[in-house]
């Protein structure tokens, strides 16, 4: 199955990825072959088969409602591209 450039643009938009026209060409081609490969699945009969929702079948894994000490803010902020007033900063952008 072929993916169109428009479809790829839509998927890229959802993924927040940007491609130049040239890249768009290449990724559209790559994705077409990858999707074709994924389409193999349509050949297998899965009627009556349940989906897998859990590998080990475990359920009700809960945590008690007990307060744990929070992290040092400086450590949480240490990798921020920008910060201000103890917060993660997003610079002023148009729009």
């Amino acid at each position, binding site marked *: 199955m072929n993916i169109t450039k428009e479809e790829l643009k839509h998927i890229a938009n*959802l993924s927040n990825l940007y491609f130049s026209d040239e890249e768009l060409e290449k990724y559209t081609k790559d994705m077409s072959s990858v999707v074709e490969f994924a389409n193999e699945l349509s050949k297998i009969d899965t009627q009556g088969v349940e989906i897998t929702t859990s590998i080990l079948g475990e359920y009700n894994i809960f945590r008690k409602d007990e307060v744990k000490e929070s992290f040092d803010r400086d450590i949480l902020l240490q990798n921020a591209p920008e910060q201000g007033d103890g917060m993660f900063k997003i610079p002023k952008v148009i729009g």
Partner: protein
Amino acid sequence: MEYEVVIGLEVHAELATKTKIFCGCSTQFGGEPNTHCCPVCTGMPGALPVLNEKVVEYAIKAGLAMNCDIEQNSKQDRKNYFYPDLPKAYQISQYDLPLCKNGHLEIDVDGQKKNIGITRIHIEEDAGKLNHDEFGGGALVDLNRACVPLIEIVSEPDMRSSAEAKAYVEKIKAILEYLEVSDCKMQEGSLRADVNLSIRPKGETKFGTRTETKNLNSFKAITRAIEFEIKRQIEAVENGEEIIQETRRWDDDRGIGYAMRGKEDAHDYRYFPDPDLALIKLSAEYINNIRENLPELPDSRKQKYINELGLPEYDANIITGSKMLADFFDEATKYCDNAKSISNWIMGDLLRILTEKELEQVPFKPEYLAKLVVMIDSGKISSAIAKKVFEDMFETGENPEDIVTKKGLVQISDEGAIKEIVLKVLENNPQSIIDFKAGKDKALGFLVGQAMKESRGKANPQMLNKMFLEELNK
């Protein structure tokens, strides 16, 4: 043309757990930015969520109180979208298997009762907060609220007016407060509503195109935003415009709603089961145990007030509409049998002063209101004095008995003392005596008023009345 309004609400309530939904950070409101945070709630690479058991319990309590079916096999799903306040770029929510569904609530608007359907209640995590950067002009992200547990209560499109919508949210608020599963502090955003609204010509059965106004966090905002949107849609339709399905915001300061700028992202949340979390399987026993231990809910208390204590339905409705008021009322009536009088004080001065002072809690003990009523009923103080004492109680939080003693406000019921006042007032107002004798009954009222003034409100008015009549008729 006459139009019918169709309203459905999505109410988000923060759950009053001690810790966040997926980590042990505190949910306490306030605090320096990003100080109630850890790798889990800031979405650090490699961090994993673990569900807080109280979140499930609280959501089920809410579901049972709102007459929902509880889903015994439930799961959590990821809702994928990008926003700076959403650290993982997905919100953990519930898609096709919410914890609760098919519920309903009864609302009461001016004595008209109506059932509002509840489609579902699911658990999810809250996002952080985007603050405007005063200096740099950009935005600052505070993740203290990120990962705070929420329930989202989705109604059927069953409401037909802003009054019904308001009554519905009030009912939810009261129930959640009674259950003690949410603080419902609207000004802190712990209870907020999204309004889905459409109009259609009266008699039409198909729904019109709806808009969604998001994040309304006061009753006033809910009412005004709905009124605004009804008017806007009707005007648009009358002008031959088409209603566009869109997400809107409400600016409460300016009193206007507006469409959010065309979201660049298409709406495709790509929900799928969160592989980091296990399924939730609830046994009938677990659910029954919660059901059996539900606290008394507003409707049942209301019936009790009406049937057992003889309160008017209107009063019972208002008092039970707030857990704080109802608890206050219940506590006060333990110390005094005159429930009606306590109710009157609550419905009157207490609510008025709370509103005036923008208070959420009564600053004195319920027992003190009971004592005040007892003092009035026993004639120890007059109603007029009681009003002053009541204001004082709001200021100081003190026991009314102490206030009365300290300020010497005990009612003068001593015959000798009353007589002394009466004689003095008569002496100073000879014209009133003439008027009275000439058949002007008003003169008596004037004389009693003067006597009250003379006694600085402390004289027993009944005794004054009686003694003036005796003296004047001599």
